[in-house]
């Protein structure tokens, strides 16, 4: 691993940071307004004014791609935060208190896992309509089990360590043990899980947007762009190719980053 592992971590980390920077600075980076239509310039191939061509409404594809990163990242960051907050709280309290608390928390998690995520998300979106806030909450709830189970398993192990016993012996409060002793030992694993969950969240969000049940037009989002481009694949193949490449590349980078991070932080899991 060694040198190659570092290259992998740095390269994937650089791509992830680039995507985040693009999302932050999209208004300054985009050559034109992603929403301005120009029916005289429909489905143009790449040209100096429109580096990646234009879509069926004459909108600049590059600008829409750059702006589209915002929707994906917003949902990814938001839902992973929600998932981590719920999951970590459930997992920590279940491993700390055990007994009834453990039963209630972990069985609730089991129920959430019994639904294939995309179906439950579709069912809820069908009722309350789709918005970024809905997606964040729904995906956050759907992805909390990964964090809850991880925190629970690690917390259980750490609870039997001598330093927890020592902390208790000198009279540390429950809250102090949880925050000062359990949490810091779990954080590295949480970070890895967060990056993998973020990739999964982007997949789910873009999939829902592709179906027309996620980010709503005309707001640019990658899944929606691919969905719209499907109707014009033979006229302008670049229109469908670019968002496809961008989304696959982003997810590849996040997944690779998560894997490389795990290899670096936890050498025992290498190669799994």
């Amino acid at each position, binding site marked *: 691993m060694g040198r190659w592992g570092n290259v992998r971590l740095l390269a994937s980390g650089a791509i992830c940071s680039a995507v985040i920077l693009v999302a932050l600075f999209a208004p300054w980076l985009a050559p034109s307004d992603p929403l301005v239509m120009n029916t005289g310039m429909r489905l143009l191939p790449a040209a100096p004014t429109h580096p990646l061509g234009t879509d069926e409404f004459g909108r600049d594809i590059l600008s829409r791609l750059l702006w589209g990163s915002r929707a994906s990242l917003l949902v990814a960051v938001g839902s992973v935060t929600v998932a981590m907050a719920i999951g970590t709280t459930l997992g920590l309290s279940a491993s700390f208190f055990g007994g009834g608390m453990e039963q209630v928390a972990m*069985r609730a998690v*089991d*129920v959430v896992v*019994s*639904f*294939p*995520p*995309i*179906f*439950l998300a*579709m*069912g*809820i*979106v*069908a*009722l*309350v*309509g789709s918005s970024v806030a809905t997606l964040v909450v729904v995906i956050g709830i759907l992805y909390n089990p990964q964090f809850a189970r991880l925190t629970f398993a690690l917390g259980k192990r750490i609870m039997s360590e001598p330093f927890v016993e020592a902390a208790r012996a000198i009279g540390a409060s429950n809250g102090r043990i949880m925050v000062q002793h359990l949490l810091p030992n779990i954080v590295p694993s949480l970070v890895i899980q967060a990056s993998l969950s973020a*990739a999964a969240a982007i*997949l789910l969000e*873009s*999939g829902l947007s*592709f*179906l027309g*049940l996620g980010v709503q037009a005309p707001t640019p989002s990658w*899944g929606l762009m*691919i*969905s719209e*481009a*499907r109707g014009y*694949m*033979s006229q302008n*193949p670049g229109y*469908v*190719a670019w968002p*496809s490449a961008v*989304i*696959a*590349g982003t*997810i*590849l980078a996040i*997944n*690779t980053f998560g894997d490389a991070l795990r290899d670096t932080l936890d050498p025992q899991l290498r*190669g*799994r």
Partner: protein
Amino acid sequence: MSRYILRRLVLAAATVFAVVTVVFSLLHLLPGDPVLLILGQSTYPDPEAIRAVRTALGLDRPLLVQYGDFLRRLASLDAGRSLYDHLPVGPDLALRFPRTLELIGAATLLAVAAGIPAGIYAANHRNRLQDWIISAVAALGISSPVYVIGTLLMLVFVLWAHWFPSYGYVPFTARPLEHLRSLTLPAVTLAFGIGAVVVRITRSSFLDALGQDSTRTARAKGLQERLVLFRHVLRCALVPVITVVGLQVGNLLGGTVLVEYIYSYPGLSTFLVQAISRRDYPAVQAVLLLISVAFVCLNLLVDLLYAAVDPRVRYQ
């Protein structure tokens, strides 16, 4: 083993019950009046429509009565009536569910048939160019959303090469060959993601097995290399592959949503998307229930299979 099976069965039954309860209460847990949720925010509340939905779904009765009624209906396998055409939803589900299962089965078969040999090949050429190429393709396969793969395959094989019709489902009983042809692209699309996972796991567990003492012993006693690979290494390496395939089959269920949509494959997912666009809540609810219960059963099956393969699991 029988004790383990019993325990898993009880747990699965409890989970099914919980799932049914969640699906029932979904409508009531969400903020807002259930009737208005069903009708949608965009429509202005028309008193006549509100009354119609309320009586059609029995939403005017106490919650517990509704719940009891819901359970009774499910016990008699009644999936409810559509709000759209007032026909029972059951026959539609019975027609479409097998198609979705067929799609999942075909995709799993393809993924295993292609993924295991590719993984073994990569392991045998470890750290050489072949291994790098296979691993890179696998990484790309895992990271590419299923709808991206589907859209690109459609562009290449339907629009450019004209090898397949763009859509249109042919029943097996009508024209078996055409049926397989219409199944090919959706199944290949769905197989990509799980196939990539199979390649990775096969490669790493094959490498693990190659390094085992039993393999060294088999070689030391002069067994032919072919026999070493097939009798010792492969058998040992396939256990994790089976587990992972089992775990992934559940994910395939989610993948069918997008695949069916892209190819207009008349399975359960297209029915769900259609029901959502028609704001046909009873139909949405029925699909959710069926899918979730199927998901629980699938996971149960995988657990039991795993316990049969690996006895250690039974005592956990």
